[in-house]
């Protein structure tokens, strides 16, 4: 993205650790799940930042920390210049109007006891009751807005008195989108909005989301585990692994020129719906599973599974190397100095020196 723009959302060194405690009254922290372990990125108005990664890499936690559903352990989240982590209740509520979420599971994210109308109207009702709207809405205005939103997302407004369970998955996701749009937000955090949907519905929702972005000038943070989907909808992509961002790049660059060994493996593992290409592709199959994020690391987070690991990586956490305007990567392979010849002993000695 062009650098002269002011970012809408700045995330700096965000950490989200969930304490593991034992004992019932006198609770003692015995460890922490490091779901998000120090990530930084900027989001510019009008763009779509895709976050991709495997389950447990902390991508859902990231958006929940940004929207302050979880209170971050440390770091800052600046939205329009306001630090949400330190913001008081009222400032937070005001900011929340501009930050809305779309959830993964269209079956679980809608209250089954509420009609579609009251689901879509809920954000408006809440903000109206709290007198946080620019101008208060009457119930008729809310009603009209609900109908307008339903039509915009492609739902028949005659169905507004029905309950969510009477709709199919795709229609429910449309209800969720209408609810997120109700307050005219600036940024929408979409947590895997299409991964629970059928293929034919998935493309409908993706198209709807891009149309809405054009129409209302929305900014998205879009989470998915499907690389093809991410690449299709995003302008920039951040690849996450074990609570860390390992690579940020423009969407086109990512497929054409992936840098981090994890990104390369991820891309090669994702199937392409074409038998001829599939047959000719070479797969890099990673061994092992994603390790548990409950221990502190002093080496590269991907070290255990990396096909190109060097002794140096085991005890040095890689910083983000800026490759060019469009790509940043956290991997020692792209350091100025060549670490491939360093032996384990040398690396460890170096690490010990840095620590002291």
């Amino acid at each position, binding site marked *: 993205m062009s650098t002269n723009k002011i970012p809408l959302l700045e995330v700096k060194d965000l950490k989200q650790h969930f304490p593991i405690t034992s004992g019932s009254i006198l609770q003692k922290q015995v460890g922490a799940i490091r779901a998000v372990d120090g990530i930084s990125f900027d989001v510019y108005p009008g763009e779509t930042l895709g976050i991709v990664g495997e389950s447990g890499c902390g991508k859902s936690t990231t958006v929940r920390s940004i929207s302050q559903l979880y209170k971050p352990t440390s770091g800052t989240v600046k939205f329009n210049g306001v630090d949400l982590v330190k913001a008081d209740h009222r400032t937070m509520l005001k900011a929340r109007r501009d930050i809305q979420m779309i959830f993964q599971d269209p079956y679980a994210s809608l209250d089954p006891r509420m009609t579609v109308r009251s689901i879509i109207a809920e954000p408006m009702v809440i903000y109206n009751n709290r007198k946080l709207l620019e101008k208060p809405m009457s119930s008729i205005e809310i009603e009209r807005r609900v109908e307008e939103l339903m039509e915009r997302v492609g739902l028949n407004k005659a169905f507004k008195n029905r309950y969510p369970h009477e709709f199919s998955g795709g229609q429910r996701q449309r209800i969720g989108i209408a609810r997120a749009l109700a307050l005219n937000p600036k940024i929408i955090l979409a947590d895997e909005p299409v991964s629970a949907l059928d*293929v*034919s519905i998935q*493309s409908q929702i993706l198209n709807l989301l891009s149309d809405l972005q054009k129409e209302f000038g929305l900014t998205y943070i879009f989470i998915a585990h499907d690389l093809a989907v991410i690449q299709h909808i995003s302008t920039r992509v951040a690849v996450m692994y074990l609570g860390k961002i390992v690579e940020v790049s423009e969407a086109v660059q990512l497929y054409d020129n992936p840098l981090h060994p994890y990104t390369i493996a991820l891309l090669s*593992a994702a*199937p392409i*719906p074409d*038998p001829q290409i*599939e047959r000719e592709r070479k797969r890099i199959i990673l061994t092992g599973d994603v390790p548990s994020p409950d221990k502190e690391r002093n080496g590269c987070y991907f070290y255990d599974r990396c096909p190109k690991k060097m002794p140096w990586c085991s005890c040095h956490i890689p910083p983000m190397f800026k490759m060019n305007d469009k790509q940043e990567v956290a991997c020692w392979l792209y350091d100025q100095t060549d670490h491939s010849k360093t032996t384990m002993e040398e690396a460890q000695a170096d690490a010990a020196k840095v620590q002291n």
Partner: protein
Amino acid sequence: MSMKPDAKVVLEVKDLKTYFKTDAGVVKAVDGVSFSVREGETIGIVGESGSGKSVTNLSVMRLIPSPPGKIVGGEVLFEGKDILKLTEKQMRSYRGNKISMIFQDPMTSLNPFLKISTQMIETIQLHEKDVSKQEALERSIEMLKLVGIPSAEKRIQSYPHQFSGGMRQRVMIAMALSCNAEVLVADEPTTALDVTIQAQILELIQKLSAQMGTAVILITHDLGVVAGMCDQVCVMYAGRIVEKASTDELYARPSHPYTEGLIKSVPRMDTSKKGDRLFSIEGQPPNVIDLPPCCPFHPRCNRAMDVCRSVYPPVKNIGNGHEVACWLHVEEQERAQALANDKQEEKA
């Protein structure tokens, strides 16, 4: 990956019909499905949720919860023998032994209270009475090694919750293959797994199938998985197979508007450009309760004709073993005839 036209047919499903009786009406979950699998071949069944792909395979395994479900017609021939006519006791010796199944969620199909070793030994001894416990254990360890579980001798004494999702799925595959099953039914085996793990599991299934000559029925909604894995593909929609062809043929020449739309609506990493609008099939998948006798896809089809709205299309072979159920591939004359017949029936 190559077609094996000479290999013998292991499993043949003919005009299978499974209906469910619900409060709201009869659900024709599977309505006249036919396909066959050859030795060493992998056949993919693709469809959206509710298209009846899982019910098809549960019917083959005779695991339909009854009531409300019931297999109301058709044949499932395993090596020429109709297993729908077997007693439950006879069927048990087929299940696991000749036809094995792996499920989407491996946790639900493993007993959380028993060690992996106990469960695997039990499975083997259930099907081969004369195997001793020691032999069974050795074979289990061997199978676990085969599916790539490190230090299998130690891990076999663990409980299911001590394994990660991918490892559990490997254990399931090891169990399914430990009895030298001839057909492996894999019901969305990788949907709950991550991409990198999915790649591992799919490669494993492919390798084992080639090694042991096992026929694989792979149920999935992911067209990418099918493209990489299968020799043949059946596309299901609303309880019926709408198109059936070899994988290459299907992707090169999708002939049912649904298949075509499905392939086009998946974003592709390699070709699609940012900013392109994705092709999409409008509308929602139908609710299969009390479907009228029309083509169930017609409300979403942009090439629907009058005849589509009233009569279900016949299955036509359009060459290369490519079968499709769509009026577009039927002669004009026949279409008119069908429409006329339907009108007459309506009057009567």
